């Protein structure tokens, strides 16, 4: 679990998983972790190791910085339509 907010790793795992139609189990099996671990990552209860982050990025065929960030990632609506959440 991240010790402080500064340690938090922001990510798009759930969005990407939904977009690709992949279940937690699919992703977990592909990157060699327990499905519950994907849940911990998605809920922000655990920050992944560099190896795990790279494996997840490779699974989605994206650069790691597109999936993980130290800063909050922009929402899909703001990226696509330039709108911010109210």
């Amino acid at each position, binding site marked *: 679990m991240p010790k402080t907010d500064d340690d938090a790793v922001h990510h798009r795992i759930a969005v990407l998983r939904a977009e690709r139609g992949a279940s937690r189990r699919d992703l977990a099996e592909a990157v060699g972790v327990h499905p519950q*671990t994907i849940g911990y990552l998605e809920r922000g209860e*655990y920050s992944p190791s560099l190896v795990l982050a790279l494996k997840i990025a490779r699974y989605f065929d994206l650069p790691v910085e597109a999936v993980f960030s130290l800063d909050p990632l922009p929402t899909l609506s703001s990226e696509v339509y330039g709108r911010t959440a109210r």
Partner: protein
Amino acid sequence: MSAAAKTRPTDLAATFEDDRYSWTRRRSVRRAGVVGEAVLVGALALAALAAGHGLLGSGVFAVVWVVGLVLFIPLHSVVNLGVRGLHDRRETTLDEVQRTQRDRSTAATHWPRLLLSLLAVLVAVQTATSTDGAGGASGGTAAFSVGFVLWFASWLTSTWHLAWTLPEED
């Protein structure tokens, strides 16, 4: 060793991951199991102390201990299934989160385990060197039993910590 063989789960790991036991992984069940084990261990210690002070006959003491230890087996099975056996499984069957959770509990309970182990050793030394313990031979048996309970509790603390603190699964 091939990668497939290296990552193949053992029978033990497969049992801990079996979905039939998912009910044991609910936080309420895990915590109830920890409380149950703590009460049971406390009762065994009290029975030993009572026997040492002559408040409990040796026959009753023996029955209480046998029943208590037999009850411990299913109770600990539930607790251990609830934490997916993180302390008992082969390292290669755990992922990085599971290793972190296990190591965090081991580290968090370092001092309590050390204290309980030290107390167990002190009781053992006292028992071994005592020539006229309370109640004679039964007093020695009682002291030995208290030492055993302390050692037993020291062995359980990290599993209790894990079962108590693991987040709710979904």
